[in-house]
């Protein structure tokens, strides 16, 4: 119970700090958003008018409070560019980014964990050296460039997947999956490599622990030791990494959506920066951050499930 309360407090504190940070970066740094929207040629009168319209003439702390209360009520402000509520603009785009991220995460876990175990088992042999070079390569490849390569090979050359665009899930399940598969894979490859490396190192570290020697002396076989003893212990640090990877996946999707011309949150973010649509940018960044904080919170709770030592 205490654990939950503590984590909940820290969860809320993190949200508070992040929201404050985002707000202040957008609001106390020099330059008036109204000026930015209207361009340098606009006269003072126009700027003043727009500022009033946008509520920019209120004191800073009130604006923050209004913003936060608004968000809590689902009111994310009004987009300068689209002239409609931000929530409205986001509605159609969230499912796209969400599908992308979820499929990328699934790929990461489903491919990364078995491969990590496999490589740990073959440690020291040449095959494992080569595999570890490949994971290095995976980590070092920019996901958007990998996206291009995937398009060139699988979409253009073999025509297995569409080159760009999103087909809604409601229209055709198979086609929808096809349309997000390549971008998800492009994001996942680097993360798969990270999971493999972490899990491998974590398994090898655990193998040196005394309790593994105990298990050997008990007369257990290599597989029993791996699956009954080592793996659970080795997965603990990987869990933390999965939290970080969730953040990375969402970050990666911002760029990848532009490569595959997917109308998700990421491509919206880039166009709103170009048009200096501050309410939209501010809310978008907050929403993405909130998802990640929530993911980290979930990881914390999972820890509690897996590790009996956590009672704090």
């Amino acid at each position: 119970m205490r654990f939950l309360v503590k984590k909940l407090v820290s969860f809320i504190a993190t949200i508070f700090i992040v929201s404050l940070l985002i707000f202040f970066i957008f609001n106390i740094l020099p330059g008036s958003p109204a000026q930015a929207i209207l361009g340098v040629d606009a006269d003072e009168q126009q700027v003043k008018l727009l500022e009033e319209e946008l509520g920019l003439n209120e004191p800073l702390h009130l604006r923050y409070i209004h913003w936060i209360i608004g968000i809590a009520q689902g009111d994310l402000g009004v987009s300068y560019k689209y002239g409609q509520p931000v929530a409205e603009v986001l509605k159609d785009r969230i499912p796209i980014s969400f599908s992308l991220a979820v499929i990328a995460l699934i790929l990461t876990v489903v491919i990364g964990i078995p491969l990590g175990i496999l490589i740990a088992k073959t440690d020291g042999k040449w095959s494992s050296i080569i595999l570890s070079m490949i994971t290095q390569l995976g980590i070092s490849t920019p996901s958007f460039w990998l996206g291009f390569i995937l398009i060139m090979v699988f979409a253009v050359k073999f025509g297995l997947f569409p080159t760009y665009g999103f087909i809604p899930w409601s229209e055709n399940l198979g086609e929808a999956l096809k349309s997000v598969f390549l971008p998800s894979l492009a994001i996942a490859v680097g993360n798969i490599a990270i999971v493999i490396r972490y899990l491998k190192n974590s398994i090898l570290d655990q193998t040196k622990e005394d309790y593994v020697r105990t298990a050997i002396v008990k007369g257990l076989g290599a597989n029993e030791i791996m699956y009954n003893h080592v793996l659970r212990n080795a997965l603990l640090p990987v869990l933390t990494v999965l939290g970080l990877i969730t953040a990375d996946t969402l970050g990666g999707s911002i760029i990848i959506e532009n490569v595959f011309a997917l109308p998700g949150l990421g491509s919206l973010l880039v166009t709103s920066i170009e048009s200096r649509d501050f309410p939209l940018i501010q809310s978008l960044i907050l929403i993405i951050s909130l998802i990640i904080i929530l993911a980290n919170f979930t990881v914390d709770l999972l820890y509690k499930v897996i590790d009996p030592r956590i009672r704090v």
Partner: protein
Amino acid sequence: MLEPIIEVKNLTKTYKAAQKKFRQKTSYIHAVKNINFQVLPGESFGIVGESGSGKSTIAHLIMGINKVTEGEIIFRGRNIAQLSRGGEREICRNLQIVFQDPYSSLNPKKSIEWTLTEPLIIHSIGTKASRKEKVIEVLEEVGLGESYLKKKPHELSGGQRQRIAIASALILEPEVIVIDEGVSALDVSIQASILNLLNELKEKHKLTYIFISHDLNVVQYFCDKIAVVYLGDLIELFQTEEFHQEEHAEYTKKLFNAIPDVSFTSRTS
């Protein structure tokens, strides 16, 4: 009657305990409570106890490494309990400590010469040349020579490192040295040589030792007085010589009876 060189009065150290339940009142854990003792000049004063007894806490409090919660530590007639070490150069010089782990008590990146010169630089003692002379002198005193000046800690064995740690405590010519499990990590033969060294140095420099240990054999051999601590309390204090004549507290008896004796007779009894 000799004046005590160190007198500890009602020494107490508490830590804030982690709250067990939400909205519970903050409770405090006593690391040590109401400890009283006097150490006479030239004495080897032993403090023994099992893990968690607070024996090391006492050492750290005397050295000013941890802050005293309550009570007094009187050194040469002055209460030093609340003094910060940085400000009180004289006390720094006069009270030194040797730690248990010879592997972590020397900075791995620095040469022996650097480590031994550092205290002299901090206290602005001597010139460059005279410092080097002093360092060599101390090295020889602990049974090592000039050839060790340029070595790094990883080139030395556990026993040699412990000698360097003693040298670095010695170089400021202190009156009191606290030895916090200083021989516990060593093999018996090396332990013997370090104990001999400590006794020689004591004789030569008129040192006073506060000797913290869990090893009862070592304490019985080395110390003039023994203080037994258990769960933060000082259970008993006695002269080592009189150990076999006196009546002792229950815990003391239990503790000392638990020592496995190296004579065959005790086994059959």
